[in-house]
């Protein structure tokens, strides 16, 4: 069974990859078909994931674990939203209200907390790690913020020069990091494609 899953995964991966490089009609058709299957499987995975989420929360409630009341709230909200969505359809006013009046404000609040968290983290950074790189990191961050922020008196003098000069180094650094990540991604993909890494089928 494990060999079969590996063979299917490797063959599918190779067909999709070859379909990208050689857009022959047969290969393209096969690639599109496999991608469509993958999308259907991914949609099923979402349902399984949601079922897993519900079971985990129900288990917490059953065992009366700490803060399990939030789990109960989550399950109730899920059932209500799912039920309303089934009855009225996703485009109905109730569904839009659920998004506009609940989900968007909650996410906006988390975004606000995030901004405060980042400022606090920057303040504590020197206490956590006092070295040259940390000082450079903080200095560049502050200089960039000053150069880019809008002021009541118009642009800060020399902001263009600062963003161009500091941007040259930060863009170079970012590209270096991205090249490293791209190489890591390539190698990880090849390991999975050739069945060296098999994070499926219980291997």
């Amino acid at each position, binding site marked *: 069974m494990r060999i079969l899953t590996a063979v299917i995964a490797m063959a599918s991966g190779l067909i999709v990859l070859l379909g990208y490089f050689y857009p022959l009609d047969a290969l393209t058709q096969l690639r599109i078909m496999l991608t469509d299957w993958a999308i259907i499987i991914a949609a099923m995975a979402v349902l399984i994931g949601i079922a897993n989420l519900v079971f985990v929360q129900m288990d917490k409630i059953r065992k009366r674990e700490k803060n399990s009341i939030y789990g109960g709230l989550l399950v109730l909200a899920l059932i209500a939203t799912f039920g309303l969505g089934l009855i009225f359809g996703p485009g109905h006013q109730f569904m839009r209200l659920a998004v506009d009046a609940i989900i968007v404000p909650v*996410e906006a609040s988390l975004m606000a907390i995030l901004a405060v968290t980042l400022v606090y983290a920057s303040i504590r950074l020197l206490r956590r790690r006092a070295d040259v790189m940390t000082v450079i990191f903080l200095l560049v961050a502050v200089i960039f913020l000053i150069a880019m922020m809008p002021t009541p008196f118009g642009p800060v003098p020399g902001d263009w020069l600062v963003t161009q000069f500091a941007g040259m180094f930060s863009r170079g650094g970012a590209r270096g990091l991205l090249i490293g990540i791209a190489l890591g991604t390539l190698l990880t993909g090849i390991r999975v494609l050739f069945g060296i890494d098999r994070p499926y089928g219980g291997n």
Partner: protein
Amino acid sequence: MLALGIVLFTALLLLAITYLRRKSPAVLRRIEAFERLNRVVGLAVENGTRLHISLGRGNLFTARGASALAGLAMLRRLAERTSMSDRPPIVTSGDASLSILSQDTLQAGYRAAGAEDQYRVSTGRLAGLTPFAYAAGTIPVTRDEMVSANVVIGDFGAEAALLVEAADREDTHLIAASDNLSAQSILYASAQDPLIGEELFASGAYMGAGISHEASLQVQDILRWLVIVAIVGGSLLKLMGII
């Protein structure tokens, strides 16, 4: 054609170095985050606390999936090492397919350690499907489930700061890595042990996931030098007006 050539060259190089590496194990440079991880895993098993592994939101149908796969390779080793603990590790992810794969990987780790009966399907969880829903679903795990160490590895955005803050509040260890540049800068500013750039993809080699992971690191180094030569050579040729 060039892209296919690069893929084939990389694959051949990986196979060749994996074959050669069988005789001589790699000597890896010291990365403090991995050394600390090895220590905290041992401590978690000894003091009966839990390890929390957060795999991010890397969709396996996109290039971001590679960071999730790197996280799964690490999870496989961690599951094997902590399967005998009183409290099994908990894995959270923000993508449904990744969540199923994390359960599969956990089970494989338990099986390899000869403790498959200890495996519980509820330890691999889908925490949320949007960035902030994921963060909101993951924070209670750090807070309420006797976690002593968090491994945050995979595709994260700015919401990673909320996970780091939660770990800090609970005074738990945190090792963090992401393939996203915004998340990397946030982790650098807020995490105790951030892994920067491609260090994320070195996690398998440092956790003893096998020769192929060590060979991957060597191939990455070779390719990096080739990229440097291509950039410098291309710039010089351009400067001389040849290309």
